[in-house]
């Protein structure tokens, strides 16, 4: 195994694990497409970084954080769903990003990323963020779920549902930001949805569901990267991103068949 491959596997594993874990809440919260949409919100931030010559990732982070707070506040005031507000904010951000980035190649990089071209600093940041995101989400996981089951029960248990939701949204934006840089927008959208959907097919308990979702995320990412490396000798070798998606969706289809065959009561 080359050093480069080991490197990609490590990053893929971390991002897959954390996106799968956070995604398990997003799928339950009917926020499945929020990760995908949020990844576009980072675009104007990336553009600013490129235009003003600072690390585009920092610009992306700043935009995601600011947008998360705006989305959360609009949600509190209007009671519109996350998906509706994110839908509005993300199209605006996409438009702003396109107006700011005129170089289409740079834009494509920002949108699609490439796990094979990651600098070690980004990789280190990715692994660190994955650890922070998983650890923090673990602390608030039960509180978010109780808030979903019954907001009244959660509040009567002393849980500040709005604050916990904001914290979660900020953690999602962290994972999305680093995910875009490393794996690209498309893959971030995939990693927060498909592993959780597959895990849900096989789970009757929260602990099993969140564990399987994280493992499926990590497994699809590492398997996709490995397939890409096996195919690197063929003419026009496929990049890892689409192979990660194909692996994950195959895993999902297997869980659909298992559930259908066993008629698992989930």
């Amino acid at each position, binding site marked *: 195994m080359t050093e480069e491959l080991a490197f990609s596997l490590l990053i893929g594993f971390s991002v897959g694990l954390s996106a799968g874990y956070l995604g398990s809440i997003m799928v339950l919260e009917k926020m499945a497409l929020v990760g995908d949409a949020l990844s576009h919100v980072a675009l104007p931030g990336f553009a600013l970084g490129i235009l003003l010559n600072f690390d585009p990732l920092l610009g992306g982070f700043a935009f995601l954080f600011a947008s998360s707070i705006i989305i959360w506040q609009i949600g509190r005031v209007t009671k519109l769903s996350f998906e509706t507000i994110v839908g509005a904010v993300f199209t605006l951000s996409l438009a702003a990003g396109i107006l700011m980035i005129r170089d289409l190649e740079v834009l494509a990089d920002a949108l699609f990323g490439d796990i094979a071209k990651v600098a070690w600093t980004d990789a280190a940041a990715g692994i660190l963020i994955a650890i922070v995101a998983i650890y923090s989400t673990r602390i608030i996981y039960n509180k978010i*779920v109780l808030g979903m089951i019954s907001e*009244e029960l959660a509040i*009567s248990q002393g849980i500040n549902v709005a604050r916990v939701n904001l914290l979660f949204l900020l953690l999602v934006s962290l994972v999305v930001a680093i995910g875009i840089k490393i794996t690209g927008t498309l893959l971030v959208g995939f990693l927060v949805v498909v592993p959780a959907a597959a895990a849900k097919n096989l789970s009757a308990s929260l602990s099993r569901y969140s564990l399987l979702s994280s493992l499926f995320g990590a497994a699809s990412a590492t398997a996709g990267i490995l397939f890409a490396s096996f195919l690197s000798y063929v003419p026009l070798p496929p990049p890892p991103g689409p192979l990660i998606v194909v692996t994950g969706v195959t895993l999902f289809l297997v869980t659909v068949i298992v559930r259908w065959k066993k008629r698992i009561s*989930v």
Partner: protein
Amino acid sequence: METLDEYILKVTDLTVEIPNQVILENVNFQLKKGTTLAIVGPNGAGKTMLFRALLNLIPYKGKIEWAPKVKTGYVPQYLSASDIPISVEEFLMFKGGSNLDGTLSSVGLESKEVLNKRLGALSGGQLRRVLIGWATMDKPNVLLFDEPTTGVDLDSEEAIYKMLVDLKLKYQITMLLISHDLHIIRDYSDYMMALNRCITFLGESKRIMDLELQRMIYGEPVCMVQE
């Protein structure tokens, strides 16, 4: 109300508003320790909002005074658990309980039968019992039930109310319950309060079978079932 020794709750001039709408207006009542108060009224009368205000879940005007050291338990009308893969054990653990077997047996459930079941896969009656178990886990003095038998068949409904009476006697609990079921109100509560934004009737529950009173509470008479 003279003292809070005898009364566990005193509500004075309670008003709850949402933008462009008054939900509750100048509601005044007090509740004696150990009694059961049924809250009735048409849909949208503000019954659930009254509970939310009593539990301090929403902003309100006026005064809500609980006796010192009162602990409240709450059983909501609905849970959104059908789509969430969570076991009964995990749900009860959210409350931080240690004796889950004891909690379940106190509400007439076998722990080995339901503990590992998915919360959303329980029958209506089992779910109500689990919720009552949740609410009584930390030995509250007051229980608030929002439609305790929603989604429950008639036999289970009777069993659940009998169980509530047992729990009430065992722990000397004061109860507030929202119900549309006139027989339940007559048989299982001491007093009733009819709400329709304001209080339209406050008195003994046995009067609920009075057709004149029903007409006043619900706007129209509740018709008899005829062969």
